[in-house]
């Protein structure tokens, strides 16, 4: 597994190549990339700053990955999350999962994202024309993580 928290952008092709890493048991690679929208709750976003809690971030992402591996047969997992100032169109997060078959990879990728959104200590502060504001947590994100209890 690899977890990276970084200010720099990432390259999807390179990340997938790194994750695949010559593992011929892999039959499926699923990736999710989250990006910055220019509109949030009807306010236009000029830029956003992503803050995290060093130490806990890595620990919580590793725990989420361990939970995914306990649920599904996975070959490998890569999580990259950016911090610092980002602008609309910028990539924020990458979750990439390899497995022998697509079912496991699709499910695990979604599971990791749902728990990252609700458990990993990252916060977004948006700059809008009306000033800056901390983004509120969404209850729909809690619901998304909650449904895995019965899946």
């Amino acid at each position: 597994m690899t977890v990276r928290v970084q200010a720099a952008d990432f390259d999807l092709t390179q990340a997938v190549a790194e994750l695949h890493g010559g593992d011929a048991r892999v039959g499926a690679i699923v990736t999710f990339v989250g990006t910055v929208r220019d509109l949030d709750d009807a306010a236009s976003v000029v830029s956003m700053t992503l803050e995290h809690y060093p130490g806990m971030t890595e620990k919580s992402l590793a725990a989420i990955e361990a939970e995914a591996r306990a649920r599904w047969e996975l070959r490998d997992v890569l999580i990259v999350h950016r911090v610092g100032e980002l602008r609309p169109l910028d990539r924020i997060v990458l979750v990439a999962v390899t497995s022998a078959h697509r079912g496991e990879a699709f499910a695990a990728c979604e599971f990791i994202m749902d728990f990252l959104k609700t458990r990993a200590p990252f916060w977004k502060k948006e700059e809008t024309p009306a000033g800056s504001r901390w983004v509120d947590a969404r209850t729909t994100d809690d619901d998304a993580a909650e449904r895995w209890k019965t899946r």
Partner: protein
Amino acid sequence: MRTPAAVFVDLVYLARLREVLGIASERVAIPAAVVTVGDLRALLAARGGTWAIELAPERAVRIAVNHTLVEPGAPLRSGDEVALFPPVTGG
């Protein structure tokens, strides 16, 4: 059993909570009556003003002890790093 005289925790405030409280971290001595994370939150809220508002029971505040999210009933130990922060919004 812990020795009351030696009990302290290192507090860390993050994101919006750090901004409104105007403090990033502090070391706090814990009275013997403060046993759990919930007790600690009440102790801090008792400082009044912004503390009372932001840490009121109905406000969504997440608490992590030594980098793990915990419930209000979790016990405190001397030397713990206790972080208080709003619900997370990454991804």
